[in-house]
């Protein structure tokens, strides 16, 4: 029996995914659980395993297409059964129904004769104007859903603007301003330029960044921290760590461990805002921004406050590794309560990052460099770094943020946790 291959749901609030790459061709044999295709949603990129063994007999969703979850993207036939290498016809004849997006009244069921009527009805031409079409494109509005009030039912500027303002009030963050918007001149085709549609990840990053800037009252405070002690500990134990754990010892677990401790002391930094309520998070789940060639993702080290140094180190390196291999599971990127970003590895001295909503603070680690430092009226060479905390001033006042940072600074400078 042939098995349908569907677009899986990669997380609760995800309704669509982009099929980025087929790893098998039509006619090729596949084994159950073998990677079959790659997808990209607004939360994760992953490889999807084959649901059954057999032959990939049909591809219904091509690379680059975005479809709703549970859409049949392909079919696996049993080996030996008609693996006809002519799936193209099937694709044309059987357009996977547009996911019941439009409540187009079905034709009275005449099962004997499946007419291509519904398709024609679905793509009925919508009367609008160049302006309305442009707004629809920029705001991602399907004009088929709008009622036109213009001449002959034409969708007018007023219709689409009132639709958009309705959508705005229906959703908490107005997507209008949260959405990435090019100015009109960006769309100009003058000059030599290449226009490339954003990937799902890029769109998602753009939307989240803008939304966060609008939602939170961003304030940044900068601390200088003496990391000489940690630098020494790390270099002393690097070899031992490599031998025992088979991986490189990095600075990140030191920061996660100390941040987790500081968050326990300052619960308001490990919180979020819900309307006019403050939600204190019981778990300390620390997201770590991982730069990828194709964007950015923030996997989360869960319950960092309950883990040992080694546990944190293992969790963090496993997450980073899986992020680079597109093997993160949806739960790997969910539930973060605080985020650390580390542009110092690229040489940045300090940054003022954007808060990862709905969190209320984000720590940015600058480059660790040797600097002359005055200690007891003598000049010493110390490994220093700037740590910056961007916090949401709606919830966290400057003094609280600075107390948090002082505590973190102290923990880092006086590190005395065992590594193993």
């Amino acid at each position, binding site marked *: 029996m042939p098995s349908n291959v569907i677009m899986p749901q990669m997380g609760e609030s995800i309704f669509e995914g982009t099929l980025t790459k087929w790893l098998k061709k039509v006619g090729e044999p596949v084994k159950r659980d073998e990677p079959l295709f790659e997808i990209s949603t607004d939360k994760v990129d992953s490889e999807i395993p084959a649901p059954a063994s057999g032959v990939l007999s049909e591809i219904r969703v091509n690379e680059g297409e975005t479809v709703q979850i549970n859409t049949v993207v392909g079919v696996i036939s049993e080996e030996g059964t008609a693996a006809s290498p002519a799936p193209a016809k099937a694709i044309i004849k059987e357009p996977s129904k547009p996911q019941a997006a439009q409540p187009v009244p079905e034709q009275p069921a005449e099962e004997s004769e499946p007419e291509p009527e519904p398709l024609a009805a679905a793509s009925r031409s919508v009367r609008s104007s*160049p*302006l309305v079409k442009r707004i629809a494109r920029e705001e991602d509005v399907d004009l088929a859903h709008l009622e036109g009030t*213009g001449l002959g039912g034409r969708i*007018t500027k007023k219709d689409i603007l009132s639709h958009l303002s309705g959508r705005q009030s229906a959703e908490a963050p107005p997507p209008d301003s949260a959405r990435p918007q090019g100015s009109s001149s960006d769309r100009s085709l003058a000059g030599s330029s290449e226009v490339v549609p954003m990937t799902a990840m890029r769109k998602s990053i753009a939307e989240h960044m803008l939304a966060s800037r609008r939602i939170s009252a961003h304030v940044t405070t900068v601390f200088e921290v003496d990391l000489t002690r940690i630098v020494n500990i790390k270099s002393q134990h690097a070899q031992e760590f490599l031998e025992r754990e088979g991986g490189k010892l990095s600075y990140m677990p030191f920061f996660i461990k100390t941040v987790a401790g500081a968050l326990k002391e300052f619960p308001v930094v490990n919180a979020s805002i819900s309307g006019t309520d403050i939600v204190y998070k019981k778990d300390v789940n620390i997201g770590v921004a991982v730069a990828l060639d194709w964007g950015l993702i923030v996997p989360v080290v869960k319950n960092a406050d309950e883990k040992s140094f080694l546990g944190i180190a293992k969790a963090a390196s496993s997450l980073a590794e899986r992020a680079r291999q597109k093997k993160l599971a949806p739960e790997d990127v969910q539930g973060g309560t605080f985020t650390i970003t580390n542009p110092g590895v690229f040489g940045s001295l300090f940054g003022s990052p954007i808060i990862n909503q709905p969190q209320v603070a984000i720590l940015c680690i600058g480059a660790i460099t040797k600097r002359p430092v005055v200690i007891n009226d003598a000049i010493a060479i110390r490994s220093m770094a700037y740590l910056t905390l961007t916090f949401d001033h709606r919830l966290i006042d400057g003094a609280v943020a600075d107390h948090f940072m002082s505590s973190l600074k102290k923990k880092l400078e006086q590190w005395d946790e065992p590594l193993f």
Partner: protein
Amino acid sequence: MAAVTYLEAIRQGIWEEMERDSSVFVLGEDVGIYGGAFKLTEGMLERFGEDRVVDTPISESAIVGAAIGAALMGMRPIAEMQFADFISCAFDQITNFAAKCRYRWGAGVPMVIRGPSGGGIHGGPYHSQNPEMHYVHTPGLKVVAPSTVYDAKGLIKAAIRDEDPVVYFEHKFLYRRLKEELPDGDWTVPIGKADIKRAGSDVSVITYGAMVHLALEAAATLANDGIELEVVDLRTLLPLDKERILDSVKKTNKVILLHEDVRTGGMAGELAAIIAEEAFEYLDGPIMRITAPDTPVPYSPPLEEFFLPKTSDIIRVARQLAAY
């Protein structure tokens, strides 16, 4: 300060420039002893003498030719066409010579040709035309068409001071019908800048000359129905103020192009092309033209009334567009 007419504003502008700069002089048919067919140059002969207020033979070609020669020799002539209709007699001098002097020899021709134009005065086919587009189609010229007392004075002064030939179309219908108090002092209206005569949100009416006033009347009526017209007065037809035109279209998304000139080859066609090319994705309705039909200007008063665009036309088309 007393209110002055559109005609008086032009006269004041010329007078002030002649006082300010002795190279400025006027020439034309009956501009001297008679004071001009419309009395625009009245009193100038007495004040400035016959060297600077020159009565000419009835030959537009000679008037413009002499003006170009004087301009090339360092003078700033203001040549009056008694009626703009007769400017075509000097067409070759203007388009083939004055307009090309700077391009061919780097020689500016700082000359103003005044053309009393437009209908509504029962002047018939030879005394009512709007011949601006022949000159708008000629690179090297500047073409202005003021609609208000203020703009009339400011633009004639700017035209006189310009280093290149400016064709100045003044609307005869407005001569004594408009009155406005003008500010004191020496001021001009820059050539090449359109003006928003009324701001509105629903439909842009882009126009110039006497039609500006029809558009304003229509706007006042339509405001009662909740339709807000934006009236854009081009003021200068060459070079066009594309920025202000496109800004208005991008704001209202619907546009009426209005002129008294006949339809084919009129300014409206040029504007429509610019808007379609540069603001297509801002349009929420078709670009509409309101113009005179493609016929000579009729002499018969009822036919002339039929021929000229009317406030009621603007109201009708604006309502259609608003509902579109």
